[in-house]
């Protein structure tokens, strides 16, 4: 027994020694912010400026539903002062074990450094009534792809600003000023985007996954169908045929696809219907030159207006 206790004590002492040897919480002046997706990172960067370090776990060209909970992310999370998540169970498949394993009390669910951005955004498609998995991979709390509405981007940025100001009171004015500037630039950009999309308001589109309700609402598009028969279920021949028939009947010409989905079915549908596949970007960083929240909409709207012409 004593031997065993000694052995365990040894392991423990070793761990403790390592802990003490490495000054883990050497307080840097900058706040360490980790976000679940690149869009949130872009928004945090807009308002945080050079007073924060931002890292995103998911990449912009990655399906945010299916990120692997790699231990390398733990290295970022254990240093994080603030964790910003999309919420609405988008990250349910990978983020909870990372948070638990991080050993970082500051970012545990409910702690001060855990920030659910969805609570500041307008959420669409909140299911009412009973839902079952027969509907596919539905999100019971509403559609989590809300960041593709610039108004929601502004609201989330506003929420982040309040949080940053609370965590780093010294720089609160700096953050606030950056937010004001961001909001002003965003509303100018919005006018421009609205003007570009104006001729195409009311156009019908088909999307691969149901990730565009907020975008469609903001820019007056009508999403009339999905390549997926149900959220998260890969295309089936019969459903594809239905989509083709519907598109022919209603004269729908544009199919919007995220870069992480297989193009085979959308391309086949486009061939059958004489339509165009638009590989739009759901997130910042999806292609090399799209690194800010503004560039994301610039890129997508340029693609769309070209496809509609």
């Amino acid at each position: 027994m004593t031997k065993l206790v000694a052995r365990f004590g040894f392991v423990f002492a070793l761990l403790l020694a390592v802990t003490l040897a490495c000054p883990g919480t050497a307080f840097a002046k900058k706040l360490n912010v980790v976000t679940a997706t690149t869009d949130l990172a872009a928004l945090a960067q807009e308002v945080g400026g050079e007073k924060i370090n931002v890292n995103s776990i998911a990449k912009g060209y990655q399906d945010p539903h299916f990120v692997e909970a790699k231990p390398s992310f733990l290295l970022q999370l254990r240093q994080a002062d603030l964790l910003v998540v999309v919420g609405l169970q988008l990250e349910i498949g990978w983020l909870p074990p990372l948070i638990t394993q991080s050993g970082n009390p500051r970012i545990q669910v409910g702690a001060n450094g855990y920030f659910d951005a969805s609570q500041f955004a307008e959420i669409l498609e909140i299911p009412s009534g009973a839902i079952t998995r027969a509907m596919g991979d539905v999100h019971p709390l509403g559609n989590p792809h809300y960041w593709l509405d610039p108004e929601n981007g502004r609201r989330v940025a506003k929420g982040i600003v309040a949080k940053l100001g609370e965590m780093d009171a010294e720089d609160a004015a700096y953050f606030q000023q950056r937010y004001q500037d961001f909001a002003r630039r965003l509303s100018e950009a919005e006018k421009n985007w609205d003007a570009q999309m104006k001729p195409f308001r009311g156009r019908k589109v088909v999307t691969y996954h149901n990730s565009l309700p907020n975008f469609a609402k903001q820019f007056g598009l009508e999403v009339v169908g999905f390549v997926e028969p149900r959220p998260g279920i890969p295309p089936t021949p019969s459903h594809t045929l239905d989509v083709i028939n519907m598109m022919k009947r209603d004269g729908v010409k544009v199919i919007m696809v995220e870069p992480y989905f297989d193009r085979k079915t959308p391309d086949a549908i486009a061939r059958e219907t004489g339509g165009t596949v638009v590989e739009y970007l759901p997130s910042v960083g999806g292609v090399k030159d799209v690194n800010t929240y503004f560039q994301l909409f610039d890129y997508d709207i340029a693609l769309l207006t070209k496809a509609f012409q």
Partner: protein
Amino acid sequence: MKSLNCVVAFVFLAGAFALGQRTSASTSDTAALEQKIRDLEDRIITLEGQVRTMKSQAAPPAAAPPPSAPIVASPSQAAEGPTAPPAENLAAAPVSLGGAGGSAAKALNPDISMIGDFISVAGGNSVRPSPSFEMHESELGIQAIIDPYARGDVFLTFGEQGVGLEEGYITFTALPASFVAKVGKMRSAFGKVNTMHNHTLPWVDRPLVTQNLVGGEDGIDDAGVSIERIIPFPKGIFLSATGQVFRGDSGEGDELVFQSHSKSDLSTVAHLRAYKDLSESTNLDLGLSYARGHNELGSDFITSLYGVDATLRWKPLRRAIYHSFVARSEFIWSQRQQNPFEQRAFGLYASGEYQLKRRWFLGGRYDWSDRAREANLTDKGGSVIVTYWPSEFSQIRGQYRFTDYAGDHKANELLMQVLFSMGAHGAHPF
């Protein structure tokens, strides 16, 4: 929510009315009004968000106490004792253990999930026979965040007869110095396969080395205490160390590894893990494990296990849902004190799984293992596995398994498995 909508409508109407009144209103007035409406809209959306959060949150809303609440305890309160500071968060949420009523109680229900595991086996096996059809296991998972400092996970496994506690532990997530501690019954951190639940395995069965040396299906699964910590290391290498102490009972019958005969017959497990991203899509995961405990022969008979595991994963991020590859191998050495001689046995498995398409996986496994009690007897085998995923929530798997048991007993079997998942099952660690 209805009333909120009414407020919005009213604000808009009022705004429109005001605009109509002042036909000559300057543009700056309009802009100011627009800004005001926008601000009000934002406030309503924020309110909606708060309502949503309150409705959905499974955890006690310890996040942000309302600003009006006295955040700083008065001197008299502070004087009461050192336990006071964290309590104000809890005080904001009137949660009573097992006592809350109405819909509030429902919101705090833990995540409940059930995973069914049906196995059918065709073909003969004289050494380790399996039934033709079997509802092998139904795993009931109950998981929740307990309080701002801990989460709880309980997994009960229902066989066709009898119930077992596969795991049931509390994880302390808010310890100082980044320690993560678990207390309860858990699958120990010895290697990789030992930590995995049946439904997360890439095979229907477990490798021969698990059956011969590491306690069979349940493996080293015992009640005790575990501490884990990430060890800072340069060059983007993730290093973590785990130390565990258990009562000392694991496995049953022929597969028994550890048995405690007295309170002091504890078993220990230590694990060191190193992980590195080789590129965005490829990573390497290495582990060293050690376990020590007393075997069924008595307190003076020690069994020691040593393990090395390696996993190589590939998953291109842009096509993450369509293609992936995992290669994994574990080498395990067993040193078992028994009469008349100590037995030194070795075993390994090497496996690979490739994702062909979104729903199809093809895999193979090679098995080689001595037996712990008679190390001169060696079992060998190989498997080919095909898995089909109708959705994330069900799997159908076929496995052809050839086994060459010691003493020239050969077995050719076809295993079929259907796995199905209901409810909110928390994600498993990578």
